């Protein structure tokens, strides 16, 4: 199947300390890749490099055959092809739910208001945000609703892939499922996505491949049941044992 994203030998330094140390992987069309790992492993930095919010120091990122890390690339145009869902939702505070989704369609894609409204309506309905919520401001929505609007804002742009940076970490426990359910549905509809998360259940159900990162490098990768249930790497095993303690119901 077609490769959408190819990351090769990516390095990033903050000052002198390396945050990414030669990360390489590729994502195929329709694939859901889940990135696991402890805090400070470089997961967020990796996602931010992919949509060019952070400039990597070495290595290349190829999106749809175009090297986006090459000099002279129109950064805004590349970003408009990549959706990004943030841990803290980052909805535009001064715009309603509907306007949050419409803004990019009008100002980036150049649609007129009628067309933008039609696309925004489809997106909002697909993430289960009903019409009575469209005129609400972010501060008037629950965390789960805000994150679903943020997902709608990302998918309305019809991106080539969507990046999720711990999308449920800032949510009340009871609201996590409504966001994960939307993400699972997106994956079933063959949306290409990279998800940084600690939700192992989600990774088991949805991931085509799980990548485990530690100290800026990929230390293990494979099908979810391998990496999560039968890890080979010592660091990964220790991580999963601790996760077992936290999440096991027996």
């Amino acid at each position, binding site marked *: 199947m077609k490769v959408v994203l190819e990351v090769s030998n990516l390095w990033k330094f903050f000052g002198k300390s390396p945050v990414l140390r030669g990360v390489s992987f590729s994502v195929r069309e329709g694939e859901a890749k889940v990135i696991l790992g402890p805090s400070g492993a470089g997961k967020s930095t990796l996602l931010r490099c992919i949509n060019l919010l952070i400039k990597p120091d070495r290595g290349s990122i190829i999106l749809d055959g175009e090297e986006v890390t090459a000099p002279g690339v129109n950064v805004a145009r590349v970003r408009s092809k990549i959706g990004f869902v943030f841990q803290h939702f980052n909805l535009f505070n*001064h715009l309603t739910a509907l306007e949050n989704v419409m803004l990019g369609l009008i100002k980036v894609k150049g649609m007129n208001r009628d067309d933008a409204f039609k696309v925004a309506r489809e997106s909002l309905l697909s993430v289960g945000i009903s019409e009575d919520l469209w005129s609400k401001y972010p501060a008037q929505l629950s965390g789960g609703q805000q994150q679903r609007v943020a997902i709608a804002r990302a998918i309305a742009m019809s991106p080539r892939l969507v990046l999720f940076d711990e999308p449920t970490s800032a949510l009340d426990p009871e609201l996590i499922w409504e966001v994960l359910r939307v993400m699972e549905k997106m994956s079933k509809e063959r949306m290409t996505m990279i998800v940084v998360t600690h939700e192992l259940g989600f990774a088991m159900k949805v991931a085509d491949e799980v990548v485990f990162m530690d100290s800026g490098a990929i230390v293990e990768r494979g099908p979810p049941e391998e990496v999560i249930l039968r890890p080979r790497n010592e660091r990964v095993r220790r991580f999963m044992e601790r996760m077992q303690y936290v999440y096991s119901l027996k």
Partner: protein
Amino acid sequence: MNGFLTYVPVILMGVWNTLILSTAGFLLATLLGLLMAFIEVFSPKPISITVDWVTRVLRGVPLLLALLLVFYGLPRVGIALPNIASAIIGITIVDSGYQAQLFRGAIEGVGERQLEAAYSIGLSKWAAFRYIIAPQAFRAALPGWLNEFTIVLKDSSIAYAIGVTELFTQAVHVAQVVLDYLQPLILVSIVYFSICYPLSIISERARRKLLAMGVAAV
């Protein structure tokens, strides 16, 4: 009593100059304050630090000193201005330091997350400022900006010191004629209050409405 009443229109005529002084000084200070705030937020560090330092100096100048300096001091170097122009310039200079601080806080208060989100949907730097940062900063600055006007309005009474015939000056002159300070000064207090009070109500309403929208005013 009757002596005072006949002078009431004389005092009230000072309202025009008070409004001209404070409005002109305030709006010019807004232009200058915005300019300095933009420079502080968006220019390279050495320039930004220099401008920040300038705003501190401006905020440290007493208005009375600024007025005397412009009106009595500048003629020494060949710049002689009428007293009302001097008062406007003095107010502009001092208040621009405060407004720069207000706008800078409003722009910086919008925060990195909003900017990241703007970039993530493909907005350019300019579009992100135009559609995300500026509208939020404007809303956040509004209550403080209105409050600032009430402060300038009251401080414009200091133009008395250089003989501008504004509200306060008129009241003092009348007081000297009718040999009673109490009634003229109570009258001007009521005038200042009736201009400032509605503005502070609007400011407070704006603040509360913004809070409900999730925008914290500066």
